[in-house]
Every structure is written in C-alpha cells, then in structure tokens.
C-alpha cells in the first residue's frame, strides 16, 4: 500500500460504531465504496501536485482515537474567536464546530435551516474519493433552504471552527436555493488553536430557476492545518452563482470548485485569492461545465507566493456538445515574491461546440520593476513601494466581493496577512 492509505478495517469498524441516526445508512454504503477507492495519490492527474499523505496519517490517528474514546471529541476552546468575527460581519450566524452544528439555528423569514443527522437530508452527492470519505464519517451537517422568492436582509454566516486536538473532522453544508431566491452566505474557516489537523469539507448548492447564490469563503486556519474542500454548485435556468474564495492560512489546502450549468441563461462567477508564505501549499482546482447555452462564466484567480510556498491552479472549462452561445473567460495571475516559491498553473479548455467564445490566460511574474521605479521616484521607500503594488495586485479581488458585509473584515485580515508575507520574504 502506498503512503497515502487509510486503515480500511478501522474505518469500517468506526462506521459500524457510529450512532444510528439518519446518516447511518449512507455512511455504511460510503465506507464500502471508499474501501475500493482509497485516498487519491499523486499518480492521479488531478492530484499530481498535491500529496495527501499527511491527511491520511491524521485520518488514521482520528480513527484510532475514535475507537479508544468512543467518539468523544475535545471541545474547541473558542474564547473570543467567535466574537471577533461576529462583531465585524453583520450576518445570521451558525457555528459548525468539529463537524457538529453547535449553535441555535437562526430564525429568518423564508429560510429553513436544519441539521442533517436529525432531520434527514436530500441524497449526499459526490462520487470522488474525498466526498465518499466525507460521507462515510459524517457526524452531522447543515441544510439551508431558501424558499422561492426569499431575499433575506442579511447574509447567513457559517463559522467553521475546528480544534486540532481532534485529528480530523468532516463538515458538510447543503444549500437549496428556491426559485428566484437570493441567498448570501459567508463561510469563515478557523482553527481554535495551533496544531496539526485535517478537515475534509463539502459545500453543495442547488440553484433553482432564477435563483442567485452569493458565497464568500474565508479560510484563515492555523499554519499546520490540512484541508480538502469541495464546493459544487448546480445551476438551473437563469440562476447565478457568485463565489469568492480567500485562502490565507493552512499548511496544505486543496479546493475543488465545480459548477455545472444545466439551464439556459445561467452564469457563474468564480474569484479566488491565495496568499502563501513559508511552506504553505495551496491547490485550487476549478471546473465549470457549460451543459447548455447560452450561458456565461467568468473566473479570475490571483495568487501571491513567498517563502518556499507552492501553489497550484487548475482551471477547467468544459463546453458540452450543443452548448452554443457559451461565453467563458478565465484567468490566473501569480506574483512570485521569493526565489524558492513555486507555482504550477494549468488553465484548461475542453470545447465540444462551435458557437462559443472562450478565452483563458495565465501569467506568472514578479513585481514590475518600472512600477516600483515610478513609485520610488515619487519618494517612496522600496519597501513601501513593494507593499503598495502587492496590495494593489490583491485588492482587485475585494472589489468583486459577492457579499459586501464582509469587506471591512476581509480587508483587515488581508492587510495583516500581506504584511507577514512581505516581511517573511526579506
């Protein structure tokens, strides 16, 4: 067996030992399916640059602990962590702690929120190994439904806090956007304290005709944290999905964003920013499938890398046969601040229809010498000039923010992170 292997016998034993709630059946089926799949390895094209050995190690640790203590999780000592976020972003907050829903569910007009282990759920999707693994060990999750036409006054905030004393956690959020509803979601992922931990999370959204879903994901976890995050959105006629992701923390972060357009007139907007320093590894894989046309998609990911960090971008746009009228643009821009950082980028297009407009672009470079010179001739120190240009590079993503309420909080967190990045470089 390769290094990235989960102890299958242990997994089956743990799944058997889990409580008989509404997820039990799905868990058992998934456990058997996972036994056939196993963790992805670097031999697989989609995982070429990202090695999940550490995640598997942590997974095995967690399984051992589960058997030893009967599934008791250590509680996160969140202190003022929650308040720090909640005071800055005005939203209806729900807290997901170590994979459990750990707060009162908000009461919002036209919005129904429930726990999936308790209330049941629509079928759990995802046939890939990590989704199946998530299902096999899922303890609870969140289900949010926006009734047709619902437009809540404030965004829904989901605060995901994991405690590294538990080696692993699975989280799952399922969204149903009813016809012509407009839901806005802020997802904030944090660690309660320092330490190694693996989080495997899934965010699934289903958008009915004319629905709009705005989603901002801010990941600012501990520097030893490992996470695999999958986001999938299914879009029907005239629906819109706007997604912003900000990856600031974590040792190893892998994001899979999959949007599937199944109805005419739908549009997808993906925006991402990743800031990596030290030994951080951030891998963004996105896939947009234009199943029908006319439909549009726009995607822009930006990255700033320093230290010995490594970032991966793989953006895929697939235009299915017959999806005429597809208009798709995709770009990835990277700024390398240090000699040892590495970026592997691959913007892919697979096009099976002819009446389409598709473009993609990718750039890799360092700070523009002439821009630096310009600022220096105006009396700015080299360091100051660098900061201004670097921030300008990152700030573009803030201007396209899908949920305005988190702008100020994000701007602060970003500035702090950027300062670290630039200082660490010297």
């Amino acid at each position: 067996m390769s290094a990235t292997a989960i102890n299958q016998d242990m997994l089956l034993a743990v799944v058997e030992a889990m409580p008989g709630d509404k997820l039990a059946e799905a868990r058992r089926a998934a456990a058997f399916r996972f036994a056939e799949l196993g963790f992805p390895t670097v031999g697989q094209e989609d995982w070429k640059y990202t090695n999940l050995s550490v995640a598997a190690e942590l997974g095995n640790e967690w399984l051992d602990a589960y058997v030893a203590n009967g599934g008791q999780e250590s509680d996160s000592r969140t202190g003022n962590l929650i308040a720090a976020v909640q005071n800055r972003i005005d939203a209806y907050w729900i807290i997901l702690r170590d994979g459990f829903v750990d707060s009162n569910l908000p009461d919002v007009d036209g919005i129904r929120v429930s726990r999936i282990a308790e209330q049941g759920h629509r079928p759990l999707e995802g046939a890939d190994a990590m989704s199946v693994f998530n299902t096999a060990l899922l303890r609870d999750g969140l289900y949010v439904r926006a009734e047709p036409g619902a437009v809540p006054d404030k965004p829904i905030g989901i605060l995901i806090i994991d405690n590294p004393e538990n080696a692993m956690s699975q989280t799952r959020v399922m969204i149903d956007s009813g016809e012509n509803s407009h839901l806005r979601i802020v997802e904030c992922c944090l660690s309660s304290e320092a330490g190694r931990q693996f989080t495997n999370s899934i965010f699934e959204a289903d958008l009915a005709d004319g629905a709009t879903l705005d989603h901002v994901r801010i990941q600012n976890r501990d520097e030893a944290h490992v996470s695999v995050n999958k986001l999938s959105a299914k879009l029907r006629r005239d629906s819109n999905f706007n997604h912003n992701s900000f990856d600031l923390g974590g040792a190893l972060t892998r994001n899979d964003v999959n949007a599937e357009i199944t109805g005419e007139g739908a549009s997808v907007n993906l925006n991402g920013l990743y800031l990596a320093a030290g030994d951080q590894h951030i891998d963004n894989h996105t896939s947009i499938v234009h199943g029908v046309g006319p439909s549009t998609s726009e995607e822009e990911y930006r990255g700033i890398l320093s230290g010995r960090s490594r970032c991966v971008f793989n953006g895929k746009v697939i235009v299915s046969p017959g999806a005429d009228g597809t208009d798709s643009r995709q770009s990835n821009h990277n700024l390398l601040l240090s000699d040892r950082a590495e970026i592997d980028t691959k913007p892919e297009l697979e096009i099976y229809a002819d009446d389409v407009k598709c473009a993609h672009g990718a750039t890799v470079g360092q700070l523009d010498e002439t821009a630096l010179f310009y600022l220096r001739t105006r009396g700015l120190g080299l360091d100051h000039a660098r900061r201004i240009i670097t921030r300008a590079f990152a700030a573009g993503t803030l201007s396209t923010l899908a949920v305005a309420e988190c702008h100020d909080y994000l701007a602060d967190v970003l500035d702090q992170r950027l300062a670290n990045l630039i200082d660490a470089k010297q």
Partner: protein
Amino acid sequence: MSTDPNNLESLVNRRYEHGFVTDIEADSLPPGLDEGIVRAISAIKKEPEFMLEWRLKAYRHWLTMQEPEWAHVHYPQINYQDISYFSAPKSDSDRPKSLDEVDPKLLETYDKLGIPLHERARLAGVAVDAVFDSVSVATTFKEKLNDAGVIFCPFSEAVIKHPELIKKYLGSVVPHRDNFFAALNSAVFSDGSFVYIPKGVRCPMELSTYFRINAANTGQFERTLIIADEGSYVSYLEGCTAPMRDENQLHAAVVELVAMKDAEIKYSTVQNWYPGDEDGKGGIYNFVTKRGDCRGDNSKISWTQVETGSAITWKYPSCILRGENSVGEFYSVAVTNNMQQADTGTKMIHIGKNSSSTIVSKGISAGRAQQSYRGLVRVMPQAQGARNHTQCDSLLIGKECGAHTFPYMEVKNPSAKVEHEATTSRISENQLFYCRQRGISEEDAVNMIVNGFCKEVFKELPMEFAVEAQALLNVSLEGAVG
C-alpha cells in the same frame, strides 16, 4: 452559415489525393517483435556491436513499460506483434549513386505526389535524402555539402562511418527509456537521417527529407539526429505524404536535435499522412517524440510544424533550454477534419539564465475531429530571467468537433515571466459576410480567413514549404464549411 448541402457533400467525400501504392519488391521481416527481430534488424543493417547492445537495452526496457493513456485520443489497442518491423527496397547493398540509377517507379511516385525530385532539388537548391520505406535510396548535393564539411547521410551509414558521433549523441536528448514509443523506436528503428554541421559552418542549403510509408503493415520507425556544433546554422525540412491504407499504420519516430554554443537549428515539418476516411477507418497513428537540446549558450532551436494528416497525432516537439540566453520556439498549425484526433503541443524546459521561449499554436478543428493542445512550460529555480509567451488559438468549424487546451506551467523562479493566452472561437459571421459582400465565394472566404488565422506560423516556414502548406490547408478543409 449557409452552404449548399450538395456541394458540401461532394467536397467532404473527396478521396485522399495522394493515395496509391508503388509496387516495388520489399525485403521484409515477418510480423512480430522479440529479441531475435531486434538482432535481425541490426544484422541486416550490418551495425557495429554497440548499436545492437543499445537496441537490446531499449527493447528490454520497453517490455517493462505501459502504453501511455493520458492523451485525449481514442483508438483500438495496438497489437505490437502484428507489425512487421523492417521493410527495405531490394537493392539495399547496391545503392544508386545518382538520380539516374534510382528506380524509375520510385521517381514516378514522387511525380504523382507533385514533387519532381530532380527538378525540385536542382531548382530549389535542396538536397533530398529521400527515405523510401525505411532505407534511403537517393542522396543529392552530397558534394556541395561535403565541401562545407557538413555530414548529411542516412542514419545507417552514419552508424558505420561516424560511430564516434553516434556514440556520443544518440539517445543523449531522447534516452532509450524516455517513453513507451521512444523506447520502441530505439529498439527497432530502421533508418533515418543524420546531420552534423561543424563549428562555424552555415549549412549552404536547406536540408530536406521525404518520408513515405509504403509497404502495407509496416510500421515506420525513423530516427533523426541533428547536431549543430558551435556557431553553426542549419535549416531542416521534413515533409510527408502516404498512400491510402485501410489498416492503421503505426509510426513512432524519434527526432533528436543538439545545438551547441551559438548554434541554431530550424526544423520544419509538413505532415500529411493518410488521415483515414470520413468514418475514421484507416489512417496513420503518428506517435512521435521530438526534442531539441539547446546545450550551449546563445543557442536556438525552432520547431515549425503544419500537421494536417494522420488519424491520430501524438506529438510534442520540445526544447530543453540549458544554455544561457538560449531560445526555443514552437510554431504550429494543426488541422483536423472528419474523425481525426490530434493531441499535440510542446514542452519548454527553462534551465539556463535568460532563456526565452515562444509558443504559437493554431488549431483548426472541423467535422467530428477532436484536437488538443497540450503544453508544458517549466522554469527551473536556476533559470533567472526566463521568459515565455504562449499563445494558442483554436478555430472550430462545425457542430460536432472539439478543441481542447491543456497548458501546464510550472514556475520555480520569481524573475521568470510566463504568459499564456488562449482563445477558441468559430469563424465570425461578420467576417464571412464582409468577404461575400465583396464577391468572394464562401469557400474562398473561409480559406482566406483560415489562412489569415495561420499566418503567424506560415511566415516561419521556408518559402517553398509555406506555399505547399497553404495549398494543403485549403485541401484539408475543403467541404468542412458549414
């Protein structure tokens, strides 16, 4: 877009113009592959011991390898035991000394192809080392090249006459264990061309070889090795057409280029092998490994290719930019029509400081064809100031074709500048309308637009090739408009 359907039909159903079989007695080995066959090929070619050893090493390694499956192409499993690995025209030991001695039937073949060898060679000043079914039969302009000190000869001759060069350079760019098809080629390659340009020499003429696949069921395994020593320059042209066949033919060639300090190699290809019929029956499988090594500082390797033929193309001419300030270029036009599939692109590996590369890839997909650009730009940590610009554009003609792009960029140096741009679109109604308004027929308008689309690449081709390439493009796309 509107086109008269009957007219379209007739154009689509056009037969492959270059499909005919020349009836020359061939001296072939029975189908199958084992160590005995490898030894037999080596023995027929009277090769020295070191070559046989090299072939066997490659063959043994090949046995341990898996056929690659990652390419975006589909084809039935190849049975490597069904292929005959050697076929040579009879008069192997008694090679013609001049064109007069060349089998007239062979010359007729070239005439049918519209390439009057003698005339063309003289008029265009091109030395033609015509590879006909794996063994070279005619070499012209030898003397002129001799005077300049250029060695341009069949590979098998080079093995005997210049073993020291072969030993030094063979497999130094594409090692025998490089990939499945390169390993197979290393084991069974029949012949090919060898070029050595000595220090400071500018090759007095453009070198050209015509590859043809002739005898049925013969996989052709060419091996080309070009060495440009310090400060030299050579332009090499390769062009191919093949007779019509119903069974798929495997072609796994290897091309190795070595450019020393200040040297420049320009390698141009026009590939027009039989692409199979409208339903994808027959056609050549073209699985080629081409790689150039810019070994010295300020060296330059430029690949230009026009790919219109073959049922399946699997080809990535690459540059290893080892020297400081070395330059790699890749200009490509690939046309796929009917059921053709192509997975092609390039690799630029930046190792030397200030190395730069340019990639311009133009893909045209029509009918039910699938085409992919697959490229890699890798900047190693020591490649300070490396520069790459990649542009790959696809043009789609028809509802059922596909165009895909898989560009890999791996950058490990912050001072590197890497850019990639790609667009995919179809011929715009506006452009067509504009042309038709001015009395240009739809067919001509499309040809004009497509030629404009490819202009950037065509201008890189040597003049006589550029003319042929444009004609080829028009023929390849005839009937595809709609």
